[in-house]
């Protein structure tokens, strides 16, 4: 090569090296060592999915709306830290031995005393009349998508009202009858009583979530409360006593809340909360890494985009893929099961059902299908409510399963050539894989009966489930309130929602659950539910596949947070955004286009020097 060409080459290399050093220097100077400022220090930005259906606390019954409402509208109780224990919130903790309420000796009348001086954010007083207004409004609206049915059979007068034709029409006769019974009675400004139809030990727990209070004045100014009908204004704009006030709700975009400067308790450190609805996970993740979002919803299916897979699957250890954020997995009061419908053969045969229970590969389901984001239940009640690992439960045991199936076959429950379908609602990947797992396990036993899996779009799924046309299908239950009765009654009592749907009726279980509903001693209740859970397991009505967990993922400048098994999402009232000494920027590396160039050029420099 000529001298001129050499000089040109050297010159070009020098220029490239200088540029690369400049870029690398800029990068190294600015990114890893610079402690990022906390963006939007007084505003929490959450990116999530699942927009609320309503913000009316009179009928909101889903977690998306509830997680917003709990900041605006408060109920009588709150949950104590990370536990399911209820503590007085709007109630006067100096009353009733610290509980804020007393119970009559017959267990039928609850007397509540409210704190004084609390106002709704529109200035209206929060008092006994306001509570009565809210409770009655909830019952009289009786939105079938709401939660008024929780009080069916519990509060005086509610059963009759709910059973009558009271939705989509104002049934004045029933309204008058309900109000005349005065199930909620005002004693004085701050004291009121609720009368039950029967003693019900979990009643106070029930009030932990429902109802949350809205300002009666606000409702009256905006269309009022019409029995049998929802209120479209209130659906979109609640006014409560909570630490935040509603600002706006732009559909499919965001809900904005601002701090309630007149809050009766310690003011929130955050001035504003913005909840953005972003369906696409990668968009949420980019915003999270860039600091534009403080907290994002991470579904279990995307968990390994954020934490190390092997560390979690093998050691249950959370190792974030990058520094700068926290990823937490905590209990959540929910469970899932495969329900067997005794109205359809061979599910009416107990041995067949027991065979199904032992044929399900629980460890494989938990590890491979749910990626260990669930735990195997002991009974129908999640362990966060009933921490009892002595309840006998079926385990994966193909040999034992075969014994049961053989017994069922001998009894004529099924014959060679029979087919059975396992159903799940379309779009639910965990249920699809769980159904396939069960089908494969049973088919591998070569019993002569063939299992297939069929997905149904969920409108059809709903219709067939309610028409009792499906022999076995996936179900799930999330806690309405933090009490074991909410689960065990649903699954085990013959009048419970799931049990009634599939013809389950064990008088002994009914008796145990009925006793548990009135028993106030926690130890005795636990024993009753232990026995009931054991019997339900023994009767083989369900394959209890897993108890839920909730995933929380937030930037490291968010402090003072705590998960709660009853509340979904991050309870934002306590959250504080502040710099930490160990705070780092999230470095995911320079662009993939630049990195190889820099690496190769830097590697070339020593050779050039030589």
């Amino acid at each position, binding site marked *: 090569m000529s001298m001129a060409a050499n000089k040109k080459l050297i010159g070009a290399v020098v220029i490239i090296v200088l540029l690369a050093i400049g870029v690398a220097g800029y990068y190294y100077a*600015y990114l890893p060592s610079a402690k990022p400022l906390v963006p939007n220090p007084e505003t929490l930005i959450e990116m999530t999915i699942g927009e609320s259906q309503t913000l009316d606390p009179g009928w909101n019954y889903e977690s998306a709306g509830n997680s917003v409402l709990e900041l605006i509208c408060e109920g009588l109780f709150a949950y104590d830290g990370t536990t399911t224990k209820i503590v007085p919130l709007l109630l006067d903790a100096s009353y009733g031995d610290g509980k804020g309420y007393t119970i009559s000796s017959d267990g039928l009348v609850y007397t509540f005393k409210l704190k004084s001086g609390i106002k709704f954010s529109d200035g209206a007083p929060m008092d006994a009349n306001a509570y009565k207004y809210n409770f009655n409004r909830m019952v009289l609206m009786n939105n079938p998508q709401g939660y008024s049915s929780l009080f069916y059979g519990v509060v005086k007068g509610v059963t009759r009202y709910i059973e009558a034709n009271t939705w989509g029409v104002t049934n004045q006769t029933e309204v008058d009858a309900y109000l005349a019974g005065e199930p909620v009675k005002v004693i004085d400004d701050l004291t009121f009583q609720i009368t039950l139809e029967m003693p019900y030990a979990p009643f106070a727990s029930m009030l932990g979530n429902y109802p949350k209070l809205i300002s009666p004045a606000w409702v009256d100014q905006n269309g009022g409360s019409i029995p049998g009908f929802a209120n479209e204004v209130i659906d979109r704009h609640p006014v409560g006593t909570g630490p935040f006030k509603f600002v706006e709700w732009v559909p*499919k975009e965001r809900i904005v809340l601002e701090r309630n400067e007149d809050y009766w308790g310690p003011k929130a450190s955050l001035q504003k909360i913005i909840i953005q609805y972003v369906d696409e996970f990668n968009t949420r993740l*980019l915003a999270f890494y860039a600091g534009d979002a403080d907290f994002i919803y991470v579904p279990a299916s995307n968990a390994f985009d954020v934490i190390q897979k092997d560390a979690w699957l093998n050691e249950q250890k959370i190792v974030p893929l990058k520094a700068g954020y926290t990823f937490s997995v905590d209990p959540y009061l929910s469970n899932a099961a495969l329900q067997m419908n005794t109205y359809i053969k061979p599910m009416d045969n107990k041995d067949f059902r027991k065979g199904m229970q032992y044929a399900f590969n629980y460890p494989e389901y938990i590890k491979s299908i749910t990626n260990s984001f669930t735990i195997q239940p002991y009974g129908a009640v999640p362990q966060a409510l009933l921490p009892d690992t002595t309840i006998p439960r079926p385990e994966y045991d193909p040999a034992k399963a075969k014994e049961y199936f053989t017994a069922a076959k001998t009894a004529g429950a099924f014959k060679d050539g029979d087919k059975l379908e396992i159903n799940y609602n379309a779009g639910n990947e965990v249920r699809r894989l769980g159904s396939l797992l069960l089908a494969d396990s049973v088919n591998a036993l070569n019993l002569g009966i063939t299992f297939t899996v069929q997905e149904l779009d969920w409108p059809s799924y709903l219709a067939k489930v*309610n028409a009792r046309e499906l022999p076995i299908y996936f179900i799930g*239950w999330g806690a309405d309130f933090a009490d074991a009765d909410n689960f065990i009654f649903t699954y085990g009592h013959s009048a419970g929602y799931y049990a009634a749907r599939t013809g389950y009726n064990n008088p002994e279980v009914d008796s145990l659950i009925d006793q548990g509903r009135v028993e106030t001693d926690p130890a005795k209740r636990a024993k009753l539910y232990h026995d009931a859970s054991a019997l339900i397991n023994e009767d083989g009505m369900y394959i209890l596949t897993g108890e839920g967990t909730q995933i929380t993922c937030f930037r490291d400048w968010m402090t003072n947070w705590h998960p709660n098994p009853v509340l979904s999402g991050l309870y934002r009232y306590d959250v504080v955004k502040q710099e930490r000494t160990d705070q780092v920027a999230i470095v995911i590396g320079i662009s993939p286009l630049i990195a190889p160039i820099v690496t190769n050029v830097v590697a070339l420099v020593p050779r050039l020097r030589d």
Partner: protein
Amino acid sequence: MRARDYIIRRLFLLIPVLIGISLVTFTLSHMIGDPIAAYLTEGSIEKISPERIQMIIKAHGLDQPIYLQYAYYISDILRGDWGISRADANRPVTESIARYLPATFELTIVAVLLTLAMGIPLGIVSATRKDRLPDHAARIFSLTGVSIPVFWFALMLQFTFFYTLKVLRLPSLPLSGRVDQTLAAATGFHSITGFYVLDSLLQGNMAVFVDAILHLILPSFALAYISVALIARMMRSSMLEVLKQDYITLARSKGLTERVVIYRHALKNALIPTVTIAGLAFGGLLAGAVLTESVFNWPGMGRWSTGAILTDDIAAIMGFTLVIAVVYVLANLIVDVLYAFLDPRIRLG
């Protein structure tokens, strides 16, 4: 037939089209799904008792014969009540359309303009430099667009122009949405027409005007790029056809510059098939580019309609279908009128 009469006749023909579409859509929606599903969420499905489901059915007349339900629906439509969209948190369908259609319209207009701005010149370059490097380069550029999954392309745009620039502390483009909400709140911006670019100008809010345009860049480019190939290739082939015509040879032999030959004589005729494609593309984009809207969190018709279909939200499906039918018919009408403008030989009617 005069253009005015032609347009009026075409608009009248819209009515039987809409009736036919409403009938087919209504019937199919009821046959495929259970109308009650629109009133329930997947979460509530396992908590709501059969008795309470019956209450909903009765309250909304879902137990009536289907022909009666259709009759009630049409009479409600004529009175301006298009029903409630369960997929949009129980808002009136008309409100949902009023919100999402302008958002999609705004995005679509910019995307189509970008498509034409890129596709037509590419087609001209390809045709005038056939089989040479510019033709090959244009082909590669445009075919890349049609080959790349729009979903992935949108994510790469976000990663490059939002995230990478942001971590390098350089000015970056917005990640998602239509406007910076903090800026909008701070400057008192509010929607008037639903077209944020227009609304910001009407309010004299230049900060939001610029911000709205910045928010449009990435999603409109993602949408435009996948359609460029269609326009570019159509333009190329029609331009090649036109350039072979005798009048072009005559124009050249008269000594006109190539620029004049192409842009004054050839382009207008070559545009005719391209206009058809552009019109159809506009209608298609207006129906909602679901993937792009999802990635960029653009609150448009695509996201809303997809949610409606997945939840069997019949009122929303019907409303969406009727609106898009009107859009397609109008788009076709505009294309036909444009034909007459571009080629005086074409007579309307």
